[in-house]
């Protein structure tokens, strides 16, 4: 399957639904080891994304994801705003002129997105940040020539769950050191929703 404007719009919609439905859950995760705003931040940002994308016309996935990026950048704030904003911006730049976006083009886009996240946030894998979801997902995409949505979602899920046992090195949770152990990383959970939504769109499209 390949991604076009229509399927990416569906992806964003599904993601927004998950975020709105889990706003309080994400916030409570952030209360445990952060400052208790991750759900609020993501819900505010993706609501604005939907407001924007449902009232605009897009010719390419690149245009659409760029609008997503700019909206997140200017409406989320905090740590997650620049990170998700950067991720979508890099994805947008990478898939420019590649419509419809096939598996390899998308994988290259995720590679760029992760690079962007890591440049901004200076986090490596294993530091209890959303990198811990993006990196395994990227590896999974690279290791396969098809999307394989079921396995993609499973990879993201396992990766998200694995953040529970990590002692945080980056982000606010790092202040807690050992006490951060035993709690999921909020940003990894929202990133899991992102890939879960993608998997659902891919599944439906198959």
């Amino acid at each position: 399957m390949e991604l076009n404007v229509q399927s990416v719009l569906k992806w964003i919609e599904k993601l927004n639904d998950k975020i709105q439905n889990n706003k309080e859950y994400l916030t409570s995760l952030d209360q445990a080891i952060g400052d208790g705003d991750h759900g609020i931040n993501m819900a505010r940002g993706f609501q604005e994304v939907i407001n924007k994308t449902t009232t605009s016309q897009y010719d390419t996935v690149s245009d659409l994801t760029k609008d997503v990026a700019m909206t997140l950048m200017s409406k989320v704030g905090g740590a997650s705003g620049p990170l998700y904003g950067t991720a979508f911006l890099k994805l947008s730049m990478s898939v420019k002129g590649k419509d419809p976006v096939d598996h390899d083009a998308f994988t290259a886009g995720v590679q760029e997105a992760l690079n962007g996240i890591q440049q901004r946030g200076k986090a490596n894998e294993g530091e209890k940040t959303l990198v811990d979801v993006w990196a395994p997902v990227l590896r999974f995409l690279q290791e396969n020539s098809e999307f394989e949505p079921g396995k993609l979602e499973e990879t993201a899920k396992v990766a998200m769950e694995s953040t529970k046992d990590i002692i945080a090195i980056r982000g606010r949770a790092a202040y807690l050191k050992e006490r951060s152990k035993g709690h999921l990383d909020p940003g990894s959970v929202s990133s899991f929703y992102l890939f879960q939504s993608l998997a659902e769109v891919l599944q439906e499209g198959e």
Partner: protein
Amino acid sequence: MKKIMNDPNQVVQDMLKGFVAAFPNDVKQLPNTTVIARKNAPVSNKVGLVSGGGSGHEPAHAGYVGKGMLDAAVAGEVFTSPTPDQVYEAIKAVDGGAGVFLVIKNYTGDVMNFEMAAELAAAEGIDVEQVIVNDDVAVEDSSFTTGRRGIAGTVFVHKIAGAKAEQGGSLQDVKAVAEKVVANVRSMGMALTPCTVPAAGKPSFEIDDNEMEIGMGIHGEPGIERKEIASANEIAEELTQKVLEDIDYSGSEVAVMVNGLGSTPEMELFIVNARVHEILAEKGIKVYKTFVGEYMTSLEMAGCSVTLLKLDDELKELLEAEAVTPAFSS
């Protein structure tokens, strides 16, 4: 959650409206932004100072906008760093031709958003420099992690860098003195109660009636240790001791700040201050000036922080220099 507010998602806009209404001759809100700037911004040929961060730390940051301190303050959502576009608007609004200096507290979000704004400004040809404030000794100082947080010591950076800019210092001068403050300022806080982000609707953490949290941040982030609530003297000793261990204050003169986190009565802050002064006297550290009150809060959290700034003649002079802002006068 008991709060005096209208829509929990509008608290920042509502607050800024009330702020500008209170000081209409001194400040302005940049249209369609959450930026409060001096009424007369940009000041020609003066380095423009921009600070900011999440809301909920009032009087930080808009309360420090005015002569001798900030040129603009950018307000994010509660406890959420403002977005790059907002910071960029602030930079443009205060650029009087001598460049713009950013005071950034060391949180991942603040650093990323302010740096993105600086990149946008640089692309437009505006000279931008910055300092990252990281005075909280509760957090380990490490280059492998996010490192220390910026808390109440930030107010001294506003004051002193602001005075330098007001005196006509260049962007590099301002940066140098801001870095000197950062090198010489340390803080440590504690809390008795959590606080509630309006849009979250429930407290940031739970804590027993006989417990306190040592090393508390200013965003309801849990601290480093939870223990039985101690006397004011013991609290003063623990906080001051941690600060004193971090850099060598011996034989020096200091500015002291005993900062309330939001709902601690001033009475209690003065009780802490009494013991802080005794400790410093015992160690032969001379207090040049003391600040007791709410300077960098955490909504309605109960608790306090102790900040010590090691002074030299330059810092003393800049600390004394005139400042006229809603929350700080000298």
